[in-house]
């Protein structure tokens, strides 16, 4: 058995944790900025837009890496329903990571706002101004933001359940090998496949 199937590759782990920080920052900045009229509002919007496009680029790289390297198999003793939930939630996470920035981009384009990254790079509009489409993309952006955050909470809850209750090695697939070996000498699957 290839060692990479015990864990996600280091590149996948790096992408996961960097993107976890980016996506959480995006969600918190987004929900905070839309209720603000303070001077920080402008800075937050500018970070949100720049970080959003960064997430889009990282998510596309991550998707390619995932298609290339795959993922470690789920433990054989995991109930079928739980496996299905895991698969569906991961599909949704990818869909949200890729669609949210695109929906935001469309939302700004249809409102004829300039899209400026990192204070200087200007992105073209991907659609022309439209009242109806702006409203549609704005509502979609807000709705998916809350669904995305709820899904992340579920994801965190499931990861902690694997780490603390089931102790089946699933959590360890996303942490570097050295640390996992120290903190979790009894990785279930490694024993199983040894």
């Amino acid at each position, binding site marked *: 058995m290839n060692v990479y199937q015990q864990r996600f590759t280091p590149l996948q782990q790096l992408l996961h944790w960097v993107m976890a920080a980016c996506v959480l920052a995006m969600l918190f900045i987004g929900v905070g900025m839309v209720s*603000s009229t303070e*001077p920080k509002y402008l800075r937050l919007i500018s970070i949100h837009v720049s970080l959003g496009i960064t997430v889009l680029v990282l998510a596309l790289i991550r998707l390619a890496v995932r298609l290339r390297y795959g993922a470690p198999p789920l433990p054989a003793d995991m109930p079928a329903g739980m496996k299905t939930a895991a698969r569906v939630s991961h599909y949704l996470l990818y869909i949200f990571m890729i669609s949210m920035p695109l929906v935001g981009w469309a939302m700004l384009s249809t409102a004829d706002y300039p899209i400026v990254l990192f204070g200087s790079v200007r992105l073209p509009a991907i659609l022309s101004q439209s009242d109806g489409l702006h409203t549609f993309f704005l509502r979609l952006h807000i709705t998916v933001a809350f669904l995305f955050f709820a899904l992340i909470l579920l994801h965190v809850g499931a990861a902690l359940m694997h780490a603390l209750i089931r102790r089946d090695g699933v959590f360890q697939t996303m942490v570097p090998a050295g640390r996992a070996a120290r903190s979790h000498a009894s990785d279930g699957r490694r024993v199983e496949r040894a």
Partner: protein
Amino acid sequence: MPDPHTPPARSSLAPLVLILAVILGAAAVFAYTAGWFSPQRLTPDKIVGALAPPTGPALGYRRNHAKGICFTGVFESNGAGAELSRAHVFMRGQYPVVGRFNLGTPNPDAPDATVRVRGLGLQITTPDGQEWRTAMIDPPIFPVATPEHFYALLTASKSKDPNAMKTFVAAHPEFAAFGAWASSAPFNASYAEERFNSLNSFIFIDAAGTERAVRWSLLPTVQPMPIPHDELAKQAPDFLEQEITERVAKGPVSWNLHVTVANPGDPTNDPTRAWPEDRRTVEVGTLVVQRIEPERDGPCREINFDPTVLPSGIHTSDDPFPAARSSAYRRSYDLRTAEARYYPRTAPSAPSAKP
């Protein structure tokens, strides 16, 4: 598949409680960030809501400066501004503009003569793809110093308490200058006769990276013709829109754009305080209005004249208003675009208004 190291599902509640605490804690921080536990936060919804008249907002329209008319034309830059800002718009040349003459009222049907504050929204586009949007008004100073005071002013002016405005004015002595202007300034007969002022301070960055705080104004090239007070009520409801339409139909109308540079120590964070008259002022070009179009199908209706849409070479200063305006304008834009079916467009493709 025995695994002696993996304990069976344990009965201990501790891990479950921990997981639940992590999830609920994260959700609570999210809700806090969203302001759900902070009813005192000045949100764009509060400002936009406070602007609405007692009968409710005019659906499909801007939440303030709701009455307006579109124009197109050019900004003829004379090159003198290049010394102050590296923005392309200050390089000698002609750049297309879309703008909007407007009245400071939430009511799109307000008779022109009843509205004290007149405004001009402007978008200048340069060949490098950058835009400069600005929304100016005709008073020489702003009534209040901060967005919080603006909200307090709106609340007081709508209050049923007969002493609310008195209390507000007493608590905000800086309001007196605006009050004096509002009660004494003449009502001019044309948008062409108005001087429009940025009031807010911005920062210009020159080619060497030097930053200067500035304000700007459009100065009319037409002699003001104040309307005698007793004739104001006799004006047609849309006299300003009719007048500017007829005037521009006969020939272009222009304003000169003046940029005033602050001296060190001049107040940049308080638009109630004018800068001394002797400050350095540079005439950087001329706005030439060539064509007037009704707002209904005109090119300005779709533009949010957000004063923080700035080209590289201009940025916001410590003035707290542009950020608050940007936030509130965006909310207003989101509301009116969602209500587009209520807006009486005349284009054949427009959907019919629903009850």
